């Protein structure tokens, strides 16, 4: 699974990195790690707008989004 480590990054880097990952590795599931709830919401909304299915797991200090 292709991983995007967007933990601690400022807006809009997490969404930009996710966008780039979807372009380069769109055929496989992508795991995106973020720290903040608003970043999680932004990435989730963006992935859904690209027609992807998103599974979000709260891991305490961070969120894991799996985009397929």
């Amino acid at each position, binding site marked *: 699974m292709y991983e995007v480590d967007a*933990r*601690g*990054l*400022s*807006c*809009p*880097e997490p*969404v*930009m990195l996710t*966008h780039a990952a979807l372009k380069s590795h769109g055929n496989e599931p992508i795991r995106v790690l973020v*720290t*903040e*709830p*608003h970043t999680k*919401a*932004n990435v989730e*909304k*963006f992935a859904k*707008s690209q027609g992807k299915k998103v599974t979000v797991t709260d891991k305490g*200090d961070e969120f894991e989004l799996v985009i397929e």
Partner: protein
Amino acid sequence: MNLTENKKTLALSGAILGAIGALLAFMGNPKNMAICIACFIRDSAGAMKLHQAAVVQYLRPEIVGIVCGAFLIALITKEYRSTAGSAPMVRFILGMIMMIGSLVFLGCPLRMLIRMSAGDLNAYVALIGFVAGVYTGTLALKRGFSLGRAYTVEKSSGYVLPIILVVLLILSVTTSLFAVSESGPGSMHAPVLVALAGGLLFGAIAQKCRTCFAGCIRDVLLMRNFDLLTIIGGFFVVMVIFNLVNGGFKLSFTGQPVAHAQHIWNILGMYAVGFAAVLAGGCPLRQLVLAGQGSSDSAVTFLGLLVGAACCHNFDLAGVAASAATAEKAAVAGGPGINGQIALIACIIILFVIGFSPKNKRA
């Protein structure tokens, strides 16, 4: 209720923010200012005597409210995250630059929108600069610009700014320690409790719907995403209605309150603000909200805004409002003096160094 669920909730959120702005203007805040982050931080700096410009000294409860509103709603909805470590001193500089650019134009992006809603054509001119600045920032982002990661730190780090602001507000209303303008924009303010309540609600809503004036343009340019722009649209519509109803709408370049028509400096001022805001991850309002929800990096950006405001008035960097001729004095064209012009050009050069330096690329 999820404020960002769909276009309707986004527009409604913006409309509520606009209603708060309208109420504050109706209750006494300066005309076409209502709620201006740059001006209000500058006024608060004056209250603390960090500068001596007598007409702009008042500790604005709105600033306290916005930070604390974001803080409280983040705590309540478990979105509070105490973070730090993402190039704080670069963010300090970006905060200073956002303030210098704003005060050359005489308003932050929020006030630019409020002035646009009142028919101030100078704000539409400044919008050109703002969009160009945001565009330049997106070029830096596409090239890999990053200020690096923030890391989770001790929870109490994020409590400091809200607590300090509350203490300052209490001191400002219970003692005579702070300066208070007797004339000019600093003397125009809504009652303290109204301003505080308005700020708290504004901060809470802005936190929940992630309102950001730079972000709204940036997301359209980068991703054709119109969510943040929808919030701004809701805000703008309410402010236009308010101005039309109360007779405050006047389509002109001249005769606008606390404004000037030096087009090139309005454009360059807001160019610096747009560019810096994208590099910093958000406009001045967004920095206050991020600081409230625990980002010590954004709290440092707030300090940069505060120090920038003090520098603007101590070293004559701010724009001067235009004024018509009276019996006693000649007309004033307004705009920044030579110090402000040099400072602004230097700020823009610094932004290019920060934004396009090979070292500031994402690891």
